[in-house]
């Protein structure tokens, strides 16, 4: 892949382009980065690895001037630098493609691409024709001639927006380009284009920082890797020094083996609690049929964006115009709002994807958040029964060991893991019989994850039916009694027992045949 010239060029520029020393940053007592030493070179793609919450985002936010470090120094090309705003970092040649897109939805593609430094005419006004030409050139460079520069970003699909974001970054003539999960929404052909662009940029002598969770991307791209864990820089090593397993070890800091609680022996088929027949929500969901039995944990897998999130929202009554049937305990029900979904008759709970906007009221007190869903059950007449409320809160906090000093403090002051526990506590208090989870372990620490797995199993043992969508294959393998793989809005495969293996999950996710077809793993489509 690499030709010798570029290889040599890289070594010529081996000295650090960006060097960070003793960088620390904490947010309200939570240490995001502790005494980090980090360096990257020109002409190299440097992958930064780590779990969510490991400090990667904070690292790039510091480099790109979005936040300022509490302590430590930064050198760019040997000169000390300090960026107070993204603008200053930009001026120094540092350009970042953020995970949360930094596009303005109501502006045109061309406006977005040239937002800070548009071409101007003789009297200093934006030259829209030149601007359009620049945008077209940059879009062509990333292979997106199909995007009209005059179109508003709002009207573009997510994958197109991500390509616009990349074009926008290239237009700023970066010396150091940072990509934070920049390919998460891309189609595979776009990913190929991005790879070749990144390779050519490296050969031009740029320094590239690449943040991704996908191991195969790291393999395809990275020359150097750095692993972060809990705000510490653990190790930096060249490509091929460590195997994938070793890298994972470095990332989680311990053996994966004993993370999950043992699964119970399966006896007869459990009595179905939730049955779904021919559920459809065009064009995202087609003819989904599934059952979740009493005391069963059913996993939902597949690549991102195959309709998993919509499936859970449809079950929870959030989507309008859902076709098909939902049966609870064998009786058909109509669920048209979360309020209906949580009613006694149905008893459903949803742990949403984004706890900050969908799960919690961050400025409100911990205890108020915990009882938000169960409040009707804690009300006598008009009044909230405060003693009952306090008692319930005390019980649940103890049960799932939420670490909280002051129950009246805003929930925003808790760590990510404890915040997620508050969301879960909120729903446990309703006594839900059916629990839907939408990627609940994102951005929480390993310890809390382990507690969560334990809790799920305990809930299942207490006859709760659980539908568990996660992007983490290990969780599907370690937690679930059955796994349903979604592809393009339909269930393509159901895996059970020993068939739940990484190979099977990955190949099913890509809609390839399962390698070892077993008697229990029945293909649905």
């Amino acid at each position: 892949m690499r030709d010798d010239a570029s290889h040599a060029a890289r070594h010529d520029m081996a000295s650090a382009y960006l060097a960070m020393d003793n960088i620390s940053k904490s947010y309200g007592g939570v240490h995001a980065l502790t005494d980090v030493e980090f360096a990257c070179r020109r002409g190299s793609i440097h992958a930064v690895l780590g779990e969510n919450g490991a400090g990667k985002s904070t690292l790039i936010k510091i480099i790109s001037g979005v936040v300022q470090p509490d302590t430590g120094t930064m050198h760019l090309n040997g000169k000390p630098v300090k960026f107070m705003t993204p603008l200053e970092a930009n001026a120094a040649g540092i350009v970042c493609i953020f995970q949360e897109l930094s596009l303005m939805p109501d502006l045109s593609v061309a406006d977005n691409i040239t937002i800070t430094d548009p071409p101007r005419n003789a009297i200093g006004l934006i030259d829209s024709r030149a601007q359009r030409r620049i945008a077209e050139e940059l879009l062509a460079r990333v292979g997106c001639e199909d995007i009209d520069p005059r179109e508003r970003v709002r009207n573009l699909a997510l994958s197109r927006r991500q390509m616009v974001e990349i074009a926008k970054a290239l237009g700023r003539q970066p010396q150091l380009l940072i990509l934070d999960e920049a390919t998460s929404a891309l189609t595979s052909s776009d990913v190929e284009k991005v790879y070749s662009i990144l390779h050519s940029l490296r050969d031009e002598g740029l320094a590239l920082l690449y943040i991704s969770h996908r191991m195969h991307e790291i393999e395809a791209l990275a020359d150097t890797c750095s692993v972060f864990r809990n705000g510490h820089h653990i190790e930096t090593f060249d490509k091929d020094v460590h195997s994938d397993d070793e890298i994972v070890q470095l990332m989680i800091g311990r053996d994966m083996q004993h993370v999950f609680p043992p699964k119970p022996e399966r006896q007869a088929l459990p009595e179905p609690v939730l049955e779904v027949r021919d559920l459809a929500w065009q064009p995202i969901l087609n003819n989904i049929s599934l059952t979740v039995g009493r005391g069963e944990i059913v996993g939902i897998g597949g690549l991102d964006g195959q309709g998993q999130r919509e499936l859970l929202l449809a079950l929870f009554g959030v989507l309008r115009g859902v076709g098909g049937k939902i049966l609870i305990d064998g009786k058909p029900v109509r669920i048209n709002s979360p309020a209906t979904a949580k009613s006694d008759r149905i008893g459903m709970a949803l742990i949403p994807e984004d706890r900050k906007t969908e799960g919690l009221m961050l400025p409100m007190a911990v205890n108020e958040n915990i009882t938000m869903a169960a409040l009707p059950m804690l009300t006598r007449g008009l009044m909230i029964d405060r003693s009952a409320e306090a008692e319930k809160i005390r019980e649940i906090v103890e049960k799932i060991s939420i670490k909280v000093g002051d129950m009246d403090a805003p929930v925003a002051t808790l760590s990510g893991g404890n915040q997620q526990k508050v969301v879960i506590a909120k729903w446990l208090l309703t006594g839900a019989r059916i629990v839907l989870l939408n990627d609940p372990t994102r951005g929480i620490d390993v310890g809390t994850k382990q507690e969560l797995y334990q809790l799920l199993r305990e809930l299942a043992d207490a006859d709760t039916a659980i539908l568990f969508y996660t992007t983490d294959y290990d969780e599907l393998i370690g937690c679930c009694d059955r796994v349903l793989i979604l592809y393009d809005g339909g269930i393509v495969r159901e895996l059970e027992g020993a068939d739940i293996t990484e190979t099977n999950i990955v190949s099913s996710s890509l809609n390839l045949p399962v390698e070892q077809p077993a008697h229990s793993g029945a293909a649905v489509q």
Partner: protein
Amino acid sequence: MKTLRLLATQNLGFLLAVGMFAALYSVYVSMHPNYGMNVVNQNGNETLALILVAMAQTMAVLIGGLDLSVGPLMTLVNCFGSLVMAGSGGNIFLGIISCMALGAACGFMNGCIVVYGRIQPIIATLATGAIFIGLALFLRPTPGGNVDGDFSWAFTNDINELGLTYGWWDELGWFGTIPLQPIILGLILLLVWVPFRRSTTGRGCYAIGSAEGAAYMSGVRIDRCKLAAFTIGGFFAGCAGIYLTMQMGSGNADAPQAAEYTLRSIAAVVIGGTSLYGGVGGVVGTVFGALVLRSISFIFRVVPEDSLLGFVASPLLQPLFEGLILLLAVSLGAARVFRIRNRLSLFT
């Protein structure tokens, strides 16, 4: 074709406002017993101040805020103008310049409070609005002022009158009957709005209104853009005050009138297709939004009392119909709500 489609879909609110105005105004014209240029002139006199105030409001709304001080600022400049726009030609000119400067300075002050004081625009301008009214009362405790009559007359009529009053030119035929108000408005749009819209700062304002976080990440100079938006808003409000002064020939620290202008300006902005969440729209749409509002009142004047619709001719019904039309116009947007298929998207 593609260009047309893009233009149409990206300016739907604006086109709607233009359409509404065209429809309403042609009803007015068809019902008017003796329509002519003098009627246009009269309409212009009644509308221009509202248009300018609504343009000022647009500036705050574009960056996702709301300015409750536009009416009071117009009143302040009106009172100030009634003092400084007296005397001879040169003095009047200086007076106008200082009125514009006052408007812009007050807008800049609003911007400073919002940007550096980190107070929500709606609250900051609620307070500065009180201050502006106070200053206006201080300048003009009772209505009055002696704005040069010739000047007043010349600049609120048509091209002919402008020339005749000062002896600059004679009767110019049909060309001379063009009223001055559209020309004044056109000049302000051309000299202030168009350059702003096409500057980096102006586009930054749209970026802020669209997604402030993303704009910051992209390196937009947030503070500078907000200050510029408020300053230009103040300038527009100042122009409204100047026009009001010329039209009335006097100053009046009329607080209820100021409040009414502020509230109407919000309505004009919304009807003109600017989103109250910011980032979409512009002052040209607002011009038509204000025209729509005023056209409604015009129509009530010309409905013949003995016609089928005579019962609505009563001026007493006019505020009610204005309100109902406003409610109807804003509720049309509700169609979106019933098309939405993922209810979560209602909350973002």
